């Protein structure tokens, strides 16, 4: 390795360290408090006939069949406050995905019909900016700090 390789290596490690620091600082500012769920999925496609495959091992679980649009903007604070586990089934590009919320742990993709299962193995997310991506299904689940109600400055008063 040449001297310049070493400089490059050090530079990359510093960039990564800096990015981690920024992320840590930003991500831990709030846990689930005040966060909302952001779910992006392809436009509703017909069920791919793979449901049985996906739903294996989910006996006794109350699945809520829903859409990404319905989950969009769901308040994590509200989910935590309700304090119960939730399971939502949504449609991806290749088949069904099962999202799982567990109080205190966050959101995960529990099951997904995709070859690599990267999304399932990502596990729980619970901080601002974290996301789970399922590339084959074209689904992104992430936690975001809500767009501050821009109307808030407009209102004359807030009814508490």
């Amino acid at each position: 390795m040449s001297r310049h390789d070493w400089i490059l290596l050090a530079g990359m490690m510093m960039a990564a360290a800096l990015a981690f620091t920024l992320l840590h600082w930003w991500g831990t500012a709030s846990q689930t408090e005040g966060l909302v769920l952001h779910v992006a999925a392809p436009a509703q496609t017909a069920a791919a006939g793979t449901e049985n495959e996906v739903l294996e091992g989910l006996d006794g679980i109350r699945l809520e069949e829903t859409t990404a649009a319905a989950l969009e903007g769901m308040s994590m604070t509200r989910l935590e406050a309700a304090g119960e586990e939730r399971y939502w089934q949504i449609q991806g590009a290749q088949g069904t995905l099962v999202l799982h919320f567990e109080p205190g742990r966050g959101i995960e993709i529990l099951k997904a019909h995709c070859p690599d299962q990267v999304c399932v193995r990502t596990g729980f997310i619970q901080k601002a900016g974290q996301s789970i991506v399922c590339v084959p299904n074209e689904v992104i689940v992430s936690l975001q700090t809500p767009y501050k109600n821009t109307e808030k400055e407009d209102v004359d008063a807030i009814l508490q």
Partner: protein
Amino acid sequence: MPSFNDHGRIPARKLVLLALMVALSMGLHAVENMIPFLFPMPGIKLGLANIITVICLYLFQRREVLIMVVLRVILVGLIAGNFLTPGFWISGSGALISFLSMAAACRFPKFSSVGVSLVGAAAHNIGQLMMVSLLMGSKAVFYYLPWLLAWAVPMGLLTGFSAKAAIKALRNTGLDDTIEP
């Protein structure tokens, strides 16, 4: 057109070597897919196929390497059955951006093949991430950027040293003499 003969054709020997390199990179890609995931994040792969790209950058002309990379991406896409799906575009953009940055890094003789590989690994990850973000219309995935940058370091070192050893071995065989124009 130093790499082409008077008839505008690539010499047969070189063509064979290029084809071999494409086949090798596809083979490495397949091997990589057989290794269970290491990190559950989009775009985090070993990037073994990059070894071939680095080797080729030192042995062939840049445009030939480009052809090789594009061929590899398309053929892998066809074989894996994800041709023109999001997965294809993501790995394709990673490979292409990685190639472009490595080709640029090659021009600075101060970087050895290891340095070039490091640049390539980082660019590969960033390129994939950009494509994921673009395809899904969400910036959320950039959360993974620090991990991808960090992962690019060992990944770049691995491909860099592998490529270095391979280039040295190839030079020792004198094979490369026959392919230089």
